[in-house]
């Protein structure tokens, strides 16, 4: 008989990047910041607006739905401490445009050969074996 391995504690891949409690993944969003001065929305929790430099910035959750503005397929294993599947499996990465006026660099799930510019995609958290919560966009179909 073997005991089941205890699940590792969930941690965000980067603090300030995800909005909501990690124990309710269905409600988790990508975190954004909106500048009250210039109106620009940026990725993650930021104290300063990188567009205008002011500090009148409020946190907002980003929309789940977006579309692919551009993409590529990564066909060789990225260097260093990449935590994806081994042996390496090619995957798509893109700039996903969100209604808040922001394009986010993100992996795109599913068949990389099926990704197209303009394709509708949806945000999803992705939990690694080591308990780290990353994010990915899946085709919205």
């Amino acid at each position, binding site marked *: 008989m073997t005991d089941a391995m205890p699940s590792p504690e969930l941690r965000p*891949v*980067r603090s300030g*990047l995800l909005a909501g409690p990690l124990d309710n993944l269905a409600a988790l969003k990508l975190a954004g910041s909106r500048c009250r001065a210039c109106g*620009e929305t*940026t*990725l*993650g929790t930021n104290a300063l607006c*990188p*567009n205008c430099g002011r500090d009148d910035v409020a946190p907002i959750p980003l929309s789940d739905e977006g579309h692919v*503005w*551009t*993409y*590529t*397929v*990564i*066909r*060789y294993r*990225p*260097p*260093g*401490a*990449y*935590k*994806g599947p081994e042996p390496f499996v090619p*995957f798509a*990465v*893109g*700039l996903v*445009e*969100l209604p808040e*006026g*922001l*394009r*986010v*660099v*993100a*992996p795109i799930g599913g068949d990389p050969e099926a990704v197209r*510019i303009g394709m509708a995609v949806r945000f999803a958290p992705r939990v690694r074996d080591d308990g*780290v919560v*990353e994010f990915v966009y899946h085709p919205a179909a």
Partner: protein
Amino acid sequence: MKDVVIIGAGIHPFGRFDKTAEEIGSHAARMALQDAGLAWSDIEASYLSRMYLPATSGARILRKLGGTDMPIVDIEAACASGGAALRQGVLAIRSGECDVVMVLGAEKMPRGFMDPRMIYADWQIEMGLSLNPSYWSMRAMRHMHEYGTTDLQIAKIAYKNHQNSVHNPYAMYRKEFSLEEILGSPLICDPIRRLEICAPDDGAAAVVIASADYARRIGARAPVRIAGCVHTIARYSADFRCPADSMSATVDNDGPTEVTARKAYAQAGLGPEDVDCFEVQDTDAFCELEIYEELQMCPIGEGGRLIDEGVTAITGRHPVNMSGGLISKGEPVGASHLGQVVEIVSQLRGEAGARQVQSARVGLAHVLGAGGNCAITILQN
């Protein structure tokens, strides 16, 4: 403003060598001194451009030439490091504090994709968002979507640069490839292929620069005027080259090459039509195509037409990367821009052999990289 001229140029071939940075760096520096007809003790300040070499590499390399009490400073600005270092040398002379300065670029780099920890955060590396070519490729995919740029046009740029490299004794790869071989080489990140991309390597290049008065006083052979030397960082969201994690869909600032080019043309009092030859950042073949547009050789979206019409061939109206470009030379980051400058100097002196652009009087060198660092140097005979 004081006129600044290049009075000596030197280079160590770009490639992979069983030599130390001190050996390849001092080789280029001594060659530049010899070309200038000067001794090391004549130099009043030195700047080393490097990214991967350790702290105080400038002193480590240049002290080999003899004891000195001059300032020796290392400069880093990613792929634009060489432009940033050259600009410091130009400013030292324009200020009147120095008459003659050494600007050296040197690098030694491991094979393969560059170490992502140099520019990416841990989370980007863990999620696989740390492959430099993926960012270049996303630009290419968007350009193809908006303007109809084709795989064949991108391959033609790699074809041209490999073809030019055959005549460059300082390039790492000096082999011509057919369009079929280029388009048949493996995709790295769609649409960019192995034979359309540059590799990291080792290399060094150096110039001795001086005030025009000093050059006259010593009777310098074939001085080349630095008409413009500009370094900028991309404005907010103006570049998603890398290591970007996002960009704005609402703010549409001009890109780093467009901004730097405008400033450099203005400083030189010249425009793109005045430039007889260009050396530009072809980290990948698409990057060169985009730079045609951003350096104002053609309207935005028409870069593909330029390569189709042969405009950027050595015999064309706007020859680009006569040296074979980074695709052939490799990119020893710190040495890259100085290597371009040495090529332009040999073009303007009429000493470029089979790579020679006929009656070249004005040349432009351009580098662009991480963080939206961009530098442009315009040289004039």
